[in-house]
């Protein structure tokens, strides 16, 4: 913890991933138009898409936004967020099965459990930054995976937790079409919360910490505690997504905790655009839809396509879809002026 300050390894402070994109400051009417468009798209989605896929997109959107909250706005790349997504999925499932609560309450319980788990993991992980942070979170998530795997009496191990009910005051939500609309408000609430966090005084401090932690400390900000808080908030939102995912599939498998799930979340965020928040939503839509389509196309190597796209994005469009689009828009606007 102690280390020199006046003599930091003065490697040119490479642009943080997020540093590429400042929070877009589009004119007001553009932002409202986009918001309206987004809401309309969300309301229409299950009519144009297989409803089960639409439900998955919603859940992954929350997950991606949670990851971006850390990556884009705190400069911490969690490669182990499956731990929170998955833990919430299990807790949600168990609560729904054993306590028979309506699903929103079960999901809330799951998200809280994820947040609680985020405290010890975050406490250890925020001691490291950058690439170390990614590795440490990855490793701890793998640990959670093993625990879930071994704790068979609770999690049913490899068989997965079967028969998670979709209970909401006696309404029949077995049809994914209606279920989609049942969870939409929860998801929107989660997204709004993420947006609020980013645009709060707290969010500003996080950006400062991301760019120069030592400086932030000298200003009197307890950096570790801020990062930890961000981590826990992010865990909670990821948990919200994971819980809904469990109810959506009426079932929880070990895969929700696997490192490939964490990796996929990061892919989604990078594709959408780091530090753009809504890019994650877009990325979730694209990736989930693409995987769905690929697995039906008979093409065996899904990883080849997702991995390939990912490599292209990292090499060529680091701003991601949203980031590139808003940069383009800004450039056009500047030219017109």
């Amino acid at each position, binding site marked *: 913890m102690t280390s*020199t*300050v*006046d003599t930091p390894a003065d490697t040119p402070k490479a642009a943080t991933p997020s540093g590429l994109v400042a929070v877009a400051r589009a004119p007001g009417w553009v932002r409202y138009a986009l918001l309206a468009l987004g809401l309309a798209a969300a309301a229409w989605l299950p009519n144009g898409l297989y409803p089960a896929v639409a439900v998955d997109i919603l859940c992954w959107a929350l997950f991606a936004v949670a990851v971006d909250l850390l990556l884009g706005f705190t400069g911490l790349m969690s490669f182990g967020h499956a731990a929170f997504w998955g833990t919430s999925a299990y807790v949600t499932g168990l609560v729904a099965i054993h306590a028979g609560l309506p699903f929103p309450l079960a999901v809330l319980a799951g998200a809280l459990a994820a947040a609680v788990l985020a405290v010890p993991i975050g406490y250890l992980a925020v001691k490291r930054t950058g690439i170390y942070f990614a590795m440490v979170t990855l490793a701890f998530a793998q640990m959670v995976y093993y625990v879930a795997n071994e704790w068979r009496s609770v999690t049913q191990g490899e068989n997965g937790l079967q028969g998670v009910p979709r209970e909401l005051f006696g309404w029949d939500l077995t049809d994914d079409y209606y279920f989609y609309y049942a969870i939409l408000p929860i998801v929107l609430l989660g997204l709004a919360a993420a947006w609020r966090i980013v645009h709060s*005084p*707290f*969010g500003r401090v996080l*950006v400062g910490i991301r760019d120069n932690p030592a400086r932030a*400390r000298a200003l009197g900000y307890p950096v570790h505690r801020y990062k930890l808080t961000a981590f826990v908030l992010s865990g909670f939102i990821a948990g919200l997504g994971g819980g809904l995912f469990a109810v959506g599939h009426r079932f929880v498998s070990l895969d929700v905790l696997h490192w490939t799930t964490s990796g996929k979340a990061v892919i989604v965020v990078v594709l959408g655009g780091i530090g753009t928040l809504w890019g994650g939503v877009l990325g979730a839509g694209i990736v989930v839809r693409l995987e769905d389509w690929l697995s039906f196309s008979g093409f065996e190597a899904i990883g080849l396509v997702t991995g390939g796209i990912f490599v292209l994005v990292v090499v060529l469009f680091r701003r991601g879809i949203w980031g590139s689009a808003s940069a383009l828009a800004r450039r056009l606007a500047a030219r017109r002026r």
Partner: protein
Amino acid sequence: MTGQALLSARGLTRDFRGFRAVDEVDLDVAPESVHALVGPNGAGKTTLFNLLTGFLRPSGGRIELAGRDVTGLPPEQVARLGVARSFQITSLFPQLSAREHVALALQSSSGLGWRFWRSAKLMGRYTERADELLAMVGLSELAEAPSESLAYGRKRALELAIALALDPKVLLLDEPTAGMGLEDVDRTVELISRVRQGRTVVMVEHNMSVVGRLADTVTVLQAGKVLVEGPYEQVRADERVITAYLGAADAAH
């Protein structure tokens, strides 16, 4: 004795893998004084700063702030007790504008930073004060520019504005005029003499004319130890200081 001093150190020591950078230093900074630390390069001035501000943990000794033991507190807590510092090698948030820097500093003493459920627009309340501070250090026109695009001298000025924004009881400045042109140096000296009212300033400075104009007390460090301490004129004339630090008289201008 320590009853008098606002900030004091007793037997303060710091080792780096067997190398002793600060060696049993006793230091008493009187309230509302300007206390200069000078000494050859590598004497341990910056290290001493880092110890006093919590960025380094002492290997031995004790630090008191207004009679309270602050040894080993982390930097953010030291800062909250009213100790602000600038960095010798500039240390800013590259993406943030000058104004945002100052606003962040102004905010830190309030609990606002924790309000993740409130709007960032609340920070607008600091704009006015931030612009005042930026004007003080001559950065008014550059308030919107991201700090990474500022030339070196401007960054130093911003460092100072940030430290001031914390409205500290104790202000620790590490070479505040290094890399500045004379005009800026003058402005900075003038600025420091303005803000010292009601504050205690500790500064590291190689520019002896700056030291002469500001300091009430000068402590000369050498090889981690206190060599001489006293008023400027006395220290300046000290044989040991001349051989160890000042060299031939023409160096100071």
